[in-house]
């Protein structure tokens, strides 16, 4: 007890003698100094544009003439009653709903197939990853050639088994599928690498224990590999959702958003309003909506994955 009392007294004394305004320690200064480059870039290129975009969305704003006046939520109300907006939003959702699960499942399957540390597998992984470093222009050119009904490899391949050539990019029902196929091919590399890294983190003795426990390959995948890849899968799906909601290059270059607007994405809708029709305020409204849609989709995915945890 005596010790307690004395320590209380000394603590009290210290509190009395400490000045009210604490000096900023050199550690704090150097800490902020290290953070500063990131914070500046983050504020200038992310935070400011976000608020600037929101500000623009509340105005009628011409690309050349500049601000034409405050309109409040008028742009939002106009957009919600624009059938072209709903068409673009639906197309984008459709694209995301197709692309994200296919890319994730395919990347996982490939990562599993190529997980053994052999030279051949390393070569295959490099080949699959190489598509990711190609620009969207090249990707769309390649796939336009592949899908061409007159000279495309796909048409020729289908022709050999007696199936008539399909005009993928000009068919209202097939065009989106064609974009999904090209996008999956293009964006497979990163999730493949993430899953490969995830698989390498799983301790080998878990698989050995499973062997001794008579687990079949499916049981091993279901109860060991899949739960261990949970966090990686969440990351992959989040990245994919964010990436594919912003789809623009593929439909813009391969189909121009057609046929009959069936592949026009939200970003293309924003682009056309902003840079074709010069309605910058209205385009910013679209960007804000896209931001909210992506945020909600990502948060929903995070919520459900945490709930599973």
């Amino acid at each position, binding site marked *: 007890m005596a010790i307690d009392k004395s320590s209380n007294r000394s603590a009290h004394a210290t509190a009395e003698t400490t000045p009210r305004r604490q000096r900023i320690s050199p550690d704090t200064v150097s800490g902020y100094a290290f953070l500063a480059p990131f914070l500046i870039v983050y504020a200038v290129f992310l935070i400011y544009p976000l608020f600037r975009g929101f500000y623009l969305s509340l105005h009628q704003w011409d690309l050349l003439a500049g601000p034409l006046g405050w309109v409040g939520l008028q742009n939002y109300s106009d957009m919600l009653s624009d059938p072209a907006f709903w068409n673009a939003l639906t197309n984008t959702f459709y694209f995301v709903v197709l692309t994200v699960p296919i890319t994730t499942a395919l990347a996982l399957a490939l990562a599993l197939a190529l997980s053994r540390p052999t030279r051949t597998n390393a070569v295959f992984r490099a080949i699959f990853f190489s598509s990711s470093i190609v620009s969207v222009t090249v990707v769309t050119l390649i796939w336009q050639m592949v899908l061409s009904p007159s000279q495309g490899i796909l048409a020729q391949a289908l022709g050999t088994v007696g199936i008539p050539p399909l005009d993928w990019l000009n068919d209202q029902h097939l065009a989106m599928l064609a974009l999904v196929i090209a996008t999956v091919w293009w964006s497979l590399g990163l999730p493949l690498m993430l899953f490969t890294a995830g698989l390498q983190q799983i301790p080998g*003795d878990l698989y*050995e*224990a499973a062997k*001794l*426990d008579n*687990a079949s390959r499916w049981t091993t995948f279901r*109860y060991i590999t899949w739960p*261990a890849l949970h966090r990686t899968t969440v990351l992959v799906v989040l990245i994919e959702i964010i990436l594919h909601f912003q789809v623009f290059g593929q439909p813009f270059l391969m189909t121009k958003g057609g046929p009959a607007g069936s592949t026009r994405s939200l970003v293309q809708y924003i682009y056309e309003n902003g840079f074709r029709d010069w309605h910058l305020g209205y385009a910013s409204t679209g960007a804000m909506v896209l931001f909210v849609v992506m945020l909600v989709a990502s948060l929903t995915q995070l919520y459900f994955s945490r709930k599973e945890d």
Partner: protein
Amino acid sequence: MTDLTLRRVIKRYGDEQVVHGIDLDIREREFVVFVGPSGCGKSTLLRMIAGLEPISGGDVHIGDTRVNDVPAGKRGVAMVFQNYALYPHMTVRENMSFGLRNVNTPKTEIRQRVDEAAAILRIEPLLERRPKDMSGGQRQRVAIGRAIVRKPKVFLFDEPLSNLDAKLRVQMRIELARLHRQLKATMIYVTHDQVEAMTLADRMVVLRDGRIEQSGPPADLYESPCNLFVAGFLGSPSMNFLPATVTDHDADGVWVDLAAGGRLHVPRDGSGLSPGETVTVGLRPEHVRPADEGTLAGSLEVVEHLGDQTLLHIRLGEDSVVIARDEGRSAHTAGENIQLAFSGSTCHLFDGDGNACPILSRDAAIT
């Protein structure tokens, strides 16, 4: 009845052979410990028995069945891993029942067997926890429990206590010895810790470079090591080795001149030795005592007080240090000159190739 037989078992990785024709019979209910330095092939041998490593040559029989090509899960063995290898996303109960579920054991039986194993290991309160919420010792108990529920013919332990702290290791060692008695099971245990090996084993198998150097009850191996390697490997601190030259031998033993000074009669069979031959005299630290007048003299370099005993490191020459064991409160201090006494009858003798000369029954004296 022989429960497990290894016949000329070989392991190759590419062109490199790491296990060289191991022959071993392990009896039912025997506790056999594979011991040896890192890279000696003890874990590889265990993994070949488990079915986790393909066998490059020879045969492994469990009971009457040749199991070379039998998958790990069908061999009737269970293994406890060094890193526990518990499934992180399952509770303890799920971990323990996983193997039984995979062979479609009825749910009531699974529950009963898991509860039994949990009671044996006193881990009932942990059954609904996940591995990340448990200490190392608790995880290792669960890993053992997972092995027990399968009621295997043979238990395999791959350095299971290496990741535990010293106190827990001692506790788990006792637990394992109790478990062996209680389960009456055949157990094969791999370790590089000779204290674990000595305390747990019915029979120790000392391995070096993929070959069995010696096998037998721990006390036999400690008292009668067959060569310099086994002699040096078993015992902590290790046996002292003193270079010597044979001067004569007769029916009572061998006369040697120690390089560090002194003449010694060792009651060992020296029939294979000839005068002038270089040999090594082996001397356990517990058989060397400081004395007023001794055979060897040197300078006391280090004094290690261990409580119940004191280890004295005495430098005899430039390359020669002898460790002697003294009482707990040793009066000796570092830096002093010291004389050492020992009996020739406690000495081991190794020929030029490092092989032990067989013991003769009669005692001998120091001159």
